[in-house]
């Protein structure tokens, strides 16, 4: 059964190839059957494989299959091959199942678009590439998937290609992530050069064997991998591309820019966690970056009015949690949060898409309102997603995953729990900004007319994901709430046993965190449901307005980068458009021309002048010959 693992990425890939060769001429029904069906098939196979894996675990709780050796040059022999262990299994399941739901949703959402088959081709390609990423046996193959998802992200952000702004957003996404990829690539060079392989498991083993903890090499390698992860996962300082990436169709945002691709960085670090364990300083940096991103993105999310941008900043922020978890060594907590986040964030995006498609693609929350009653399905699913994101206690999956991270952070936090504090503050902010959106969008007066209706292909995924967003957290609960540890047990073969946090202090913190998220929701209610004139006036004071604008632009990172990198680059390009080096040759040519003119004029046609030269030449010749 496990040997069929290669089918999981291969089927979507085949679907993509068929759609590409079909070149837009296939009937849309066939397109959706191929597009959705291939991922469905892949999800089914993945599920069977998972069941097989769990019921009869392979030796060592991991399974490897090599399709063919990609290259074999001396000791450099990366393979096209897959590696299945609990970690990649979870990733595979999330990718295929969420992917299936989103594609199903898309088949209706995108109906009528002229690029319908192109959309499914890209999406299938993405799913295939993402599966390669999570299942790859070798780092190089992983890198191939890594770049593949980047490409698909580019293609799908710029899907509506006729608007240059979309193209710009797509290029920005690709290039900014590529900066990170470069780091990863150099990391691969370093790892291979010093450890002699790129197969992940032996690589990690060799690293632990040959490198002492805290030494230069693992630190360097970890830094480079971290750079890659930061770029892909939109963490500070490479987070700027993600909000712009919302230019793509909403299902794309849901699948790529929320559920799966952006968390690839988290997966990568988790996958190479042994290396990070060897580089405590870098691991600390992961945590700090995560914490910083949490806060920065949450504040930015609070000031957006595009519903998708709110979600985008929220994604950045939530991935910050995952990084925080990784940074404190709570590997399974990070993966847990990844999974839960995939559920609720996909749900939020799909719900947002469901809203905008009924509002003539209106994205501004301030031009929505009162939709709760008009779009009940969208409302309830968005609300459930928001609750899960805000980690409303007990009933939402987000609560459990966030708790797991926060408690791990506290445990790791040392004397001053700065990281923990950041996490808690962000929990409050998260609740605040998402309920701000909920209240503004769904309550109050109707501002934009609603049209159309939903088919089952939209409602079904919403319902399914809502369920997951609610119950998906019960696989791992804190000690105080039942102490279920299914999830971390399952991952234990990858990450080792997670420490159990218990005691009354833990329960107290649990309570506090619950209150914090409730407080956020409450404050949102106070501020946005019952619009207080004092608050409105305060928000309109110039100083506050300035801050809001600053936060609206995502802390001005774009401006900074424009000034530091983009504009100088463009200026150099513009100045040198005609290739300064060529001037050197033009000067040589000009010199020849001038010499020609000079000599040309010496040919006066006058016989006495010629004779004079003859005599002068003779004079010089004699002088050289005799007087030399």
């Amino acid at each position, binding site marked *: 059964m496990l040997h069929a693992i290669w089918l999981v990425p291969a089927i979507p890939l085949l679907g993509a190839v068929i759609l590409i060769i079909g070149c837009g001429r296939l009937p849309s029904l066939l397109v959706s059957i191929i597009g959705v069906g291939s991922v469905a098939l892949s999800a089914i196979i993945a599920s069977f494989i998972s069941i097989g894996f769990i019921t009869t675990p392979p030796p060592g709780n991991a399974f490897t299959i090599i399709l063919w050796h990609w290259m074999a040059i001396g000791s450099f022999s990366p393979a096209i091959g897959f590696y299945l262990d609990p970690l990649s299994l979870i990733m595979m399941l999330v990718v295929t199942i969420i992917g299936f739901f989103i594609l199903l949703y898309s088949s209706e959402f995108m109906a009528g678009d002229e690029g319908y088959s192109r959309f499914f081709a890209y999406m299938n390609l993405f799913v295939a590439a993402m599966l390669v990423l999570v299942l790859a046996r070798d780092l190089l193959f992983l890198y191939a998937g890594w770049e593949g998802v980047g490409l698909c992200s580019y293609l799908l952000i710029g899907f509506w290609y006729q608007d240059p702004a979309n193209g710009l957003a797509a290029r920005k996404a690709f290039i900014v992530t590529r900066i990170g990829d470069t780091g990863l690539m150099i990391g691969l060079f370093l790892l291979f050069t010093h450890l002699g392989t790129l197969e992940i498991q032996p690589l990690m083993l060799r690293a632990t064997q040959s490198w002492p903890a805290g030494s230069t090499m693992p630190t360097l390698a970890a830094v480079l991998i971290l750079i890659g992860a930061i770029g892909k996962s939109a963490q500070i300082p490479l987070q700027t591309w993600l909000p712009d990436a919302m230019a793509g169709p909403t299902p794309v945002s849901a699948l790529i820019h929320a559920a799966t691709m952006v968390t690839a960085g988290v997966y990568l670090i988790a996958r190479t966690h042994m290396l990070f364990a060897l580089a405590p300083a870098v691991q600390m940096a992961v945590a700090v970056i995560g914490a910083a991103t949490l806060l920065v993105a949450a504040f930015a999310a609070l000031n957006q009015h595009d519903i998708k941008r709110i979600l985008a900043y929220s994604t950045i922020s939530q991935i910050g949690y995952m990084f925080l978890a990784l940074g404190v060594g709570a590997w399974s907590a990070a993966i847990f949060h990844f999974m839960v986040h995939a559920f609720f964030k996909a749900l939020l995006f799909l719900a947002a898409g469901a809203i905008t498609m009924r509002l003539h693609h209106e994205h501004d929350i301030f031009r929505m309102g009162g939709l709760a009653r008009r779009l009940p399905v969208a409302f309830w699913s968005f609300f459930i997603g928001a609750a899960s994101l805000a980690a409303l206690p007990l009933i939402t999956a987000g609560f459990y995953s966030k708790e797991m991270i926060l408690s791990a952070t506290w445990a790791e936090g040392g004397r001053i729990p700065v990281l923990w504090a950041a996490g808690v503050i962000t929990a409050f902010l998260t609740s605040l900004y998402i309920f701000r959106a909920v209240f503004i969008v769904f309550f109050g007066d109707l501002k934009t007319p609603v049209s159309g209706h939903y088919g089952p292909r939209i409602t079904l995924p919403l319902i399914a994901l809502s369920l997951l967003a609610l119950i998906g957290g019960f696989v791992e609960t804190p000690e105080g709430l039942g102490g279920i540890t299914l999830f971390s047990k399952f991952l234990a073969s990858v990450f080792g046993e997670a420490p159990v946090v218990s005691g009354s202090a833990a329960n107290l913190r649990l309570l506090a965190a619950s209150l914090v998220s409730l407080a956020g929701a409450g404050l949102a209610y106070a501020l946005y449901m019952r619009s207080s004139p004092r608050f409105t006036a305060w928000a309109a004071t110039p100083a506050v307005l300035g801050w809001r604008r600053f936060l609206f632009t995502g802390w001005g990172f774009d401006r900074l980068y424009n000034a530091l990198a983009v504009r100088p680059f463009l200026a150099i390009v513009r100045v040198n458009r005609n290739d300064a080096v060529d001037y050197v040759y033009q000067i040589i040519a000009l010199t020849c021309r001038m010499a020609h003119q000079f000599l040309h004029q010496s040919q006066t046609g006058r016989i*006495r002048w010629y004779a*004079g030269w003859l*005599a*002068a030449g003779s*004079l010089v010749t004699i*002088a050289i010959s*005799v*007087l030399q």
Partner: protein
Amino acid sequence: MNDAFYVASGIAVLSTALAITRANGVHALLYLVISLLAVALVFYTLGAAFAAALEVIVYAGAIIVLMVFLVMMLNLGGAAAARETQWMKPRVWIGPAILGIVLEAEIVSILARGDAGVPSLAVILPRDVGIAMFGPYLLCVELASMLLLAALAGAYRLAYLERAEG
């Protein structure tokens, strides 16, 4: 003999200088004839009597007379002389003159550094010259005849239509 050499040299240089500076063609040619005669005398003092004779007969006698004839035919009279004078402005001749002087100074300084030797005092009779000409130089003399033939043919062709054209 030495005195004769100095006198002849002086005359040769002076009359040559006059020859190249005269405006009137005939005058110039006459100065040239004097110069050639003086050089013939120098030849004689150098013991080259045969060459001296050739100089007088062929050079002064034939070649220069041909040129005199030409000058007459072209009627380079007063107007031409005036134009020549006009052409002989310092601006025109100063540069070439300096070039000539420099070249001369250069060669003179070179020659003065070397050793030109002294006369061998052997008298070379026309007979010796004749023997040389029809001995080792025989084929050269034949070649010289071809040279003259070329000059003849060339001059003939170039002047050919002149009669018809008047």
